[in-house]
């Protein structure tokens, strides 16, 4: 029995999960305190609503949670994947934006049968993401330019370029947004609309989950993934091992851009009224990519859960408006939760330490522990 506990405690996934849960828990406590400061009367019911998240709004709520989860998984994956291989693709925002445009233009301008229209639009979007990510990738690989700075630049270029292109090519002037995409280009619902009526969730969710699994397999089960992780952990040793880092940098950026592009495409093909808003501000969703990736410990499966969590809080937080918490307070509380998620690493270490001590004591009792 004790052995079993010790084994569970020493399990990495368990440690990660427990650590994330602890940090989330602490974040929620602080969030509650913040809410009490803001609005004593509404704090507790509002907090409960946030905790219930999507569940407090029935099937539609759950559907919305899953809908918001979809792009978060993908942008989180794009960043997390790059992290694991030693790069920091902060350019997800730009890749996402440019992909959104391509999806909108293919979905809005071309005419195709429903069965292939959305697929073509998605492919186009992903390719746009790939192209946008290729620039920092190539710059890093061949010109030793920090991907952080080139990604920031590419983000702004994407923003202004797309603002202009949307305006020039597919624009609804009454709302300053992109015009509608055609119904044939919308992501198929695949029955999700009957399970979660009134929500925007669609087959993009499946694509996101499949991508997460694919990335997991790629990273941990294939030789190519092995070489990528080598580069991420020890550049010199990878060189020593004959791993072609230049090529890996480029491929990683391309894959990362592909995933980010997919996210942009799926989101803007989700609903007829989900349109690109011309603005000097970056799109919201990719802004969550870093927290999602890190809260999920950059692990593809972890990212699915961290996305679910953040989407859950987004939905719950929005419902808090009914309890006297305007959107800004929701923003603060979400940010507090994310701040605390940054501590998951230290909790992870604490959990590990505890686990080690536990098994050390156990083994001392049975005298099976030996030095070295």
């Amino acid at each position, binding site marked *: 029995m004790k052995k079993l506990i010790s084994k569970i405690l020493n399990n990495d996934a368990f440690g990660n999960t427990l650590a994330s849960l602890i940090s989330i828990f602490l974040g929620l406590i602080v969030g509650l305190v913040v809410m009490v400061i803001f609005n004593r009367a509404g704090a507790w019911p509002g907090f409960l609503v946030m905790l219930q998240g999507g569940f407090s709004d029935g099937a*539609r709520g759950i559907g919305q949670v899953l809908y918001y989860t979809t792009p978060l998984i993908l942008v989180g994956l794009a960043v997390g994947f790059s992290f694991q291989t030693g790069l920091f693709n902060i350019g997800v925002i730009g890749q996402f934006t440019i992909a959104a445009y391509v999806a909108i233009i293919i979905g809005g301008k071309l005419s195709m049968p429903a069965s292939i229209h959305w697929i073509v639009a998605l492919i186009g979007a992903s390719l746009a993401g790939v192209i946008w990510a290729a620039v920092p990738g190539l710059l890093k690989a061949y010109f030793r330019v920090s991907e952080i700075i080139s990604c920031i630049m590419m983000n702004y270029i994407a923003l202004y370029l797309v603002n202009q292109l949307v305006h020039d090519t597919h624009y609804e002037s*009454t709302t300053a947004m992109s015009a509608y995409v055609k119904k044939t280009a919308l992501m198929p619902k695949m029955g999700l609309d009957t399970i979660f009526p009134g929500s925007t969730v669609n087959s993009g969710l499946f694509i996101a989950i499949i991508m997460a699994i694919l990335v997991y397999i790629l990273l941990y089960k294939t030789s190519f993934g092995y070489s990528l992780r080598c580069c991420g952990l020890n550049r010199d040793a990878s060189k020593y091992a004959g791993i072609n880092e230049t090529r890996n940098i480029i491929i990683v950026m391309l894959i990362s851009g592909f995933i980010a592009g997919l996210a942009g495409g799926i989101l803007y093909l989700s609903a007829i009224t989900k349109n690109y808003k011309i603005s*000097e501000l970056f799109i919201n969703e990719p802004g969550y990519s870093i927290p999602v990736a890190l809260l999920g410990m950059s692990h593809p499966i972890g990212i699915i859960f961290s996305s679910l969590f953040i989407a859950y809080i987004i939905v719950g937080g929005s419902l808090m*408006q009914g*309890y006297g918490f*305007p959107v800004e307070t929701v923003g603060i509380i979400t940010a507090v939760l994310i701040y605390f998620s940054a501590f998951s690493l230290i909790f992870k270490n604490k959990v590990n330490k505890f686990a080690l001590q536990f098994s050390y004591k156990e083994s001392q009792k049975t005298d099976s522990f030996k030095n070295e």
Partner: protein
Amino acid sequence: ATAAASAEEAAPAAASETTGGGEIALLISAAGTLDDRAFNQGCWNGVKEFGDENGLSYMYYQPVEDTVEAQVTLCDTAVKAGAKFIIINSDQFKVAASKMITAYPDVTFIIFDTVPIDDDGNQVLTPNVLAIQFAEQQSTFLAGYAAVKDGYRKLGFMGGMAVPAVVRFGYGFVWGIETACKELGLDDVEIMYNYSGDFKPTPENQARAASWFQGGTEIIHVAAGPMGASVFAAAEQNNGVVIGVDSDQSAESPTIITSAIKDLETVTYNSLKAWKDGTFDGGKIVLYTAKENGVALASMKFKNFTQAEYDDLYQRLADDVDGISSAIPTDTDYESPDQIPLTCAKLTYVE
């Protein structure tokens, strides 16, 4: 400690069962801000005034994103929290609005700047909704006309984005200038015209306005909500003057010589009052023009242009003397400002 809470203080009994929600709910778009120094704020001021006077709680709501599903969810949240009167202040809601008004026939709605439409694009006007629009072009017509009469010869228009309301502001301004120019027989009047592409106060927008003032522009009419602040700052540093927009912005900067307003505050207040009094008359579209006192110039600080001249002009607009108000072009008349046929003023359109 929110607005709703302060309303609670005024009327604790009314708000107690809703724990923070409001009987009057203002819905704004995901991309908007409440204190935008423009339409949202004007509307909110009307709500606050009425709510405080009548002991009704109020609250504003913003969706997670501007999709129909999210907007409908938002409306449900508001109704669940006790909303009886809902103000929709964004044309982004037009599809969602049609679903809201049919889902909640007992709740009263007003919607600004647009008309609810269903999925197929047909107008939906149930008796519990009033769609309210303004003739923005008339208020800026006044401004452009007054500025030229006051002696300005180089004028500029900076819009946020070419959305219909902003375009109407712009065209009206241009037409006001043209009209005054013709009346005075001037040949040296120049207009710079630009949509900056956003509504934010940024160094870029400050620099653009500064460069206009630097290049000789004497007065700029800015119709871009919060972005106005950048133009005011540029005016302060470059001895320029500015015409504000939407609501009376004179407190923002000493450089503001007047504001071209559409009176959302009063209209909101009056609609609420009608609802309270049981005289709410829904199911239709109302257009507020000079005739209905829906538009005006506020806090005029002109050197030469007098109140009497203003009153006279306003009356002519209200009565459409010689077709003066019907001649003002609106957003649907021309695609871009350089297509407006001007015989007197010269317009440079900066894309």
